[in-house]
């Protein structure tokens, strides 16, 4: 995973609430068996709306997306995160995110920044004309106009993002602890630990 510490540049001033994963990447794009090439299908229906920010050349290649409440609600498809990455977005700023989406974003090195609605409103305004900067180390979002918004992030996620750490590798290092759990529950909860097919 690519380490991430700072994201600076143009931001799509989208602002819409409840952007679901079917909008981020419609199901007919999910028939892939690799992670690449989904950027074309990213926000497909929005890109067809007149005056949308995603086909506006002023924002082409922007690394940041600013959205409304509950971004990424809906399905668990990780393709939503892959599609945003493939479109070049590495940071999404919104008042809130769906739990599954923020997990998927994190696991793919996309930084999700939750800020209060008034901060979002200000950033949406600034982003129309000017760039925005996110500093993960100091947990700040800044604009060229002295705006400075602090955001919260889970310390473990911050550590992994800053260092580009692979979660599976980290957990595999705890193999002995997992085996001990399995030995314990094999005794106490055999019905969960060892599923057996008794009848067809």
């Amino acid at each position, binding site marked *: 995973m690519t380490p991430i510490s700072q994201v600076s540049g143009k931001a799509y001033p989208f602002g819409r609430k409840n952007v679901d994963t079917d909008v981020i990447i419609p199901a007919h794009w999910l028939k892939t068996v690799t992670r690449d090439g989904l950027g074309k299908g990213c926000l497909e229906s929005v890109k067809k709306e007149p005056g949308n920010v995603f086909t506006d050349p002023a924002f082409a290649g922007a690394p940041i997306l600013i959205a409304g409440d509950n971004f990424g609600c809906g399905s668990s498809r990780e393709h939503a995160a892959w599609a945003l990455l493939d479109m070049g977005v590495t940071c999404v700023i919104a008042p809130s995110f769906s739990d599954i989406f923020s997990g998927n974003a994190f696991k793919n090195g996309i930084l999700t920044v939750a800020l209060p609605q008034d901060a979002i409103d200000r950033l949406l305004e600034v982003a129309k004309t000017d760039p925005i900067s996110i500093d993960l180390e100091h947990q700040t979002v800044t604009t060229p106009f002295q705006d400075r918004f602090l955001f919260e992030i889970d310390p473990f996620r911050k550590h992994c993002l800053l260092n580009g750490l692979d979660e599976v590798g980290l957990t595999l290092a705890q193999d002995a602890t997992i085996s001990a759990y*399995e030995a314990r529950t094999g005794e106490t909860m055999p019905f969960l630990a060892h599923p057996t097919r008794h009848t067809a």
Partner: protein
Amino acid sequence: MTKQPRTLYQKIWDAHVVDTRDDGTCLIYIDRHIVHEVTSPQAFEALRVSGRKVRRPDLHIAVPDHNVPTTARRDANGKRIPIADPQSAQQLDMLERNAPEFGIRYIGDADREQGIVHVIGPEQGFSLPGATIVCGDSHTACNGGLGALAFGIGTSEVEHVMATQTLLLKQSKTFQVNVEGTLGAGVSPKDVILHIIGVIGTAGGTGYVIEYTGNVFREMSIEGRLTVCNMSIEGGARAGLVAPDETTFAYVKGRPYAPVGADWDKAVAWWQSLASDPGATYDKSVHIRAEDIQPTVTWGTSPEDTAPIGGVVPAPEDFADASKRDAVKHSLDYMGLTPGTRLTDIAVENVFIGSCTNSRIEDIRAAAAILKGRKKAPGVKWAIVVPGSGLVKEQAEAEGLDKIIIEAGLEWREPGCSACLAMNPDKVPSGERCASTSNRNFTGRQGPGARTHLVSPAMAAAAAVTGHLTDVRTLSENS
């Protein structure tokens, strides 16, 4: 020393903690993982690239559902019919190769036990009360109807579960949704959950796990509880649960993977201890009167856009929040609806009865009860009933329900996700409406430009015979 009272969720959580970090993140053991063709290829690929194996293949089952066409799977000679769409065929082929390569049981598209992941988990007794259950699909929450902690995961987490049989998680907050009272005639579990989402909103459960409490859920069948828990995700919650009870044990007993003998007794003893303790507290609660729930439909493109069938299409001005007003404007435009229109005046050209929300035997029975002796309305061009699994299909056919459905002029299909999401040949044409028993009315969900109205199986059947959204109670009275 008295023990701190705990909720059902906390008890399941505590039983699955492998390790706790300083910041409160826990390594949680995952008891069951169900794999389908869409969210798994990249996870298997990652395992292969890094030379990792599946730690406990016996805790996983793989089955294709999203991509499979719902037309005949075998020809007259019993030979498997290949899938026409090359990309769908490729995803199925990959699952068929990946699962055995990593030691996982694979149920093929033409096997009698094939079905929708969330239907076959409980049906096979693979999903059990008190278990942690995951799948790369958000409607995994469905399994919570058995009193399991079940939730959807992304592909990276699928890989994590395969390699380590664990997930790194932070404990969620708890949200009690309590429904007490007596449900009126014609009010189904689907209406209950649609009503709940209308009350709490699609972000109401974000960060929470819902526990459904109250006599309405205690008196509900397992099929009904699975329907309710299924749509927890539409209420923003990653998981929803109903405490396991005698109804649950009766449902689980005798299923292929259900424990037997001494294991069964041990299991029941533990399951009986899982219900939330008296005095356990929830981070938030909402109380709903069962009498306030009507047969419910959605009019917009968010599952929270619900109204009782006797109501009208709202106007953007009816909403206080400016951004919601905007969303409603968008919704109505997409749905082609005018504020003030009576919901029962909305004509539908398509009817879909199926999906992980409503494709179990009770759902097919509810639809057939309305369809019996009636005919599909001429304005309805396409109406299909898609059982959730091969075993549901067998059961329905044994009860003669397929004949009722076909005589009414609807199609009786092979199991799969079908028209719930536009990933297989079952799609709703652009600009047309569908009365659908699925779970999402998102823009483009059932096909580009498709207009979805979420309803219960009985309400979908009612729409099929009248040609418009219909209060099922008016039909029942006439029959």
